[in-house]
């Protein structure tokens, strides 16, 4: 029995990493094609049918690039930083349940790597480690723009983390647990939480865009002022690691949003895991849509918005939910 469990764990680990890497590759292709359509052009459509083999061509191109390190860089930290970024992005997804538990050979298999009782906090803990990849990469490059980009990125991420924590609290109060599977099961019994928690959901999604450094919050890589921010000096697969981490973080933010507010794997007719991927796909489309639509914030606007608008708004919504749940109202 224990052997079977270990085999299942190994299969789940391989599957999860394959799903995340494949998800990255095709989210990137989707983004390029959709941005093309938004701008009345076609996007990459030459490699394979409809451009479907484009990610493989891109990957090969990246792998076969020369690996450069700027003069005077700290070799250990310079090589470690992209690894940290990609590693933390991969780890966050370990606690997200991708589907309903399935029964196989007399065992109940949950479709996540681990299901600890504080799953949401484990996810936040891993994602809070992701800051190091950016700030260390910026520091180790010995480049003014990289350092400024790295520091900017981490200041932005930590500014929006407070509002994110407060927004998520409403879900924890309502469902009485921090276990992600428990949250989905609560929504199965009592309805999806996006409607009662609509304010919290909007704040969560805005902070999620900011945490992944996507437009309109992509100040750390604002090419008009910072060249490319923290990854200016990186080339080849080290550069690609940062990009992979960014796209996997998008998938993660969507996955947590789906789990917390949109019922996770729940849905009629189709198998649960298909529903989960459909919901994530809708969120990814919204990410790309926002990128194609909105211009970039100015940095002072970004920080003021985070501290003076989102945190008080999240606090007010938090108190409202608390009054409702605790029975005062």
């Amino acid at each position, binding site marked *: 029995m224990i052997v079977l469990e270990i085999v299942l764990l190994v299969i789940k680990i391989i599957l999860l990493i394959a799903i995340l890497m494949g998800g990255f590759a095709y989210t990137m292709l989707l983004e390029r094609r959709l941005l093309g359509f938004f701008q009345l052009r076609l996007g990459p459509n030459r490699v394979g049918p409809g451009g479907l083999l484009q990610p493989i061509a891109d990957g090969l191109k990246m792998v076969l690039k020369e690996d450069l390190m700027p003069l005077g860089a700290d070799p250990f930290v310079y090589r470690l930083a992209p690894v940290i970024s990609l590693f933390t992005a991969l780890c966050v997804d370990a606690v997200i349940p991708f589907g309903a538990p399935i029964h196989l050979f007399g065992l109940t298999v949950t479709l996540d790597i681990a299901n600890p009782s504080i799953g949401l906090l484990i996810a936040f803990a891993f994602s809070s480690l992701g800051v190091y990849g950016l700030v260390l990469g910026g520091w180790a490059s010995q480049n003014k723009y990289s350092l400024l980009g790295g520091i900017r990125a981490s200041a932005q991420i930590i500014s929006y983390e407070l509002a994110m*924590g407060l927004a998520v609290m409403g879900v924890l109060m309502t469902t009485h647990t921090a276990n992600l599977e428990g949250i989905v099961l609560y929504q199965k019994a009592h309805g999806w939480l996006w409607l009662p928690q609509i304010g919290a959901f909007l704040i969560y999604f805005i902070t999620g865009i900011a945490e992944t450094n996507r437009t309109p919050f992509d100040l750390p890589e604002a090419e008009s002022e910072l060249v490319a921010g923290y990854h200016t000096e990186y080339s080849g697969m080290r550069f690609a690691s940062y990009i992979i981490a960014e796209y996997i973080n998008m998938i993660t933010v969507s996955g947590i949003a789906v789990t917390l507010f949109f019922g996770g794997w729940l849905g009629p007719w189709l198998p649960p895991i298909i529903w989960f991927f459909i919901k994530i796909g809708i969120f990814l489309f919204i990410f790309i849509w926002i990128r194609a639509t909105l211009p970039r914030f100015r940095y002072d606007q970004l920080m003021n918005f985070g*501290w003076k608008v989102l945190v008080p708004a999240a606090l007010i919504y938090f108190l409202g939910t608390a009054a409702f749940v605790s029975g005062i109202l």
Partner: protein
Amino acid sequence: MITQYGALLIYVLVAFLVAYLVASSSQHMGPKAPGGLKRVTYESGIVPEAPVKYFSVRFYRVAMFFMIFDVAVMSLYPWATSLRSLHQAGMLRVLAFLAIVGLAFFYVWNRGGFQWD
């Protein structure tokens, strides 16, 4: 519980290995043609002179305020998950707690601590 975290630990180790292999793959497979100005940092075509010497103090201020209020948010997580059992008394306690932390927040706000100018 330990089995859950054991699985998580194995995944974390595998993920680190994968991340390392992905990030270092072009170091092993890419071409090596040193020379030229390749290793000079790119600063929009201008020859880099002195490295950065100082930074705006605002970044440290933001980090410190984040540290302060992050501790407050962390102590709210246990409260949020057990609010059903704490009832009104828990609500009153959290109001007292948030009154003190909120005083700090609005004091900082009023003195311009969040102003990014």
